[in-house]
């Protein structure tokens, strides 16, 4: 099922500025990269300080969503067009791929590009390309969704 969504340039740009500010501040203040795959995978350690800052960041994500609801008066929209099987297979590949390739949309796409990392620029080009191709195959060739 394909949901129609509206192009929202100002909300996109505004939200992007907040994400960029978050990434910039975490690096400037704490010297850490805000890659969500790295932050999540790094939770599985015995080092308490590592667990604490990572958990704090993830709790912050939820608080941010709650503040959004409190201020705007509506719950953020989450419409998942993909079937449960595609969500499960996709989630598994996201977990595996981001660890194998050391980063995700935030870690490579924003932080890596911001620190002018060749690895991250290449990774970003690759994951956008395979994602575009996958959606093309799913929606226009296989018609699975």
């Amino acid at each position, binding site marked *: 099922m394909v949901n129609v969504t509206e192009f929202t340039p100002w909300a996109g740009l505004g939200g992007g500025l907040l994400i960029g500010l978050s990434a910039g501040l975490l690096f400037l203040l704490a010297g850490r990269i805000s890659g969500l795959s790295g932050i999540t995978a790094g939770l599985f350690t015995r080092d308490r300080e590592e667990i604490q800052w990572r958990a704090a960041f993830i709790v912050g994500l939820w608080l941010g969503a709650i503040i959004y609801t409190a201020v705007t008066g509506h719950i953020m929209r989450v419409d998942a067009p993909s079937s449960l099987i595609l*969500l499960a297979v996709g989630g598994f590949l996201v977990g595996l791929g981001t660890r194998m390739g050391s980063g995700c949309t935030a870690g490579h796409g924003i932080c890596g590009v911001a620190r002018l990392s060749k690895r991250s620029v290449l990774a970003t080009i690759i994951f956008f390309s395979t994602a575009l191709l996958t959606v093309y195959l799913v929606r226009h060739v296989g018609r699975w969704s």
Partner: protein
Amino acid sequence: MKILIPLFCGILFGLGLAVSGMVNPAKVLNFLDVAGQWDPTLALVFAGALLVALPVYQLSLRRQKPVAGDEFKQPDKDRITVKLVAGAAIFGIGWGLAGFCPGPGLTALAAFSGAAVVFVVSMLTGMLLWRFLLQD
């Protein structure tokens, strides 16, 4: 102090994902669907994020160390490996199938999205499989 900075940055990040609509897989998938219902919003999210992150990162790197930390934890920038290329390709396929990447998937849990729960549990499984079985 050690908790406050990441907590505050997490709040900004979550707010940004909510405001931009990137917690919504329908919007992300429509960005990736250039041949169909194309919604270019994600491009502006990226542009906005880089507009701030790029100068702040570059200015930060002129410092010896972060304002409230011992060192900048920077992963390798240059070495192109098979793992990097294959991992990024696999991640992109998963992203295109699910419509979630890690940040939005985690944030969408706050909206009690069942789809986000399925995604996050599967993502953690993939991460742990790599960590304990496949990583050399």
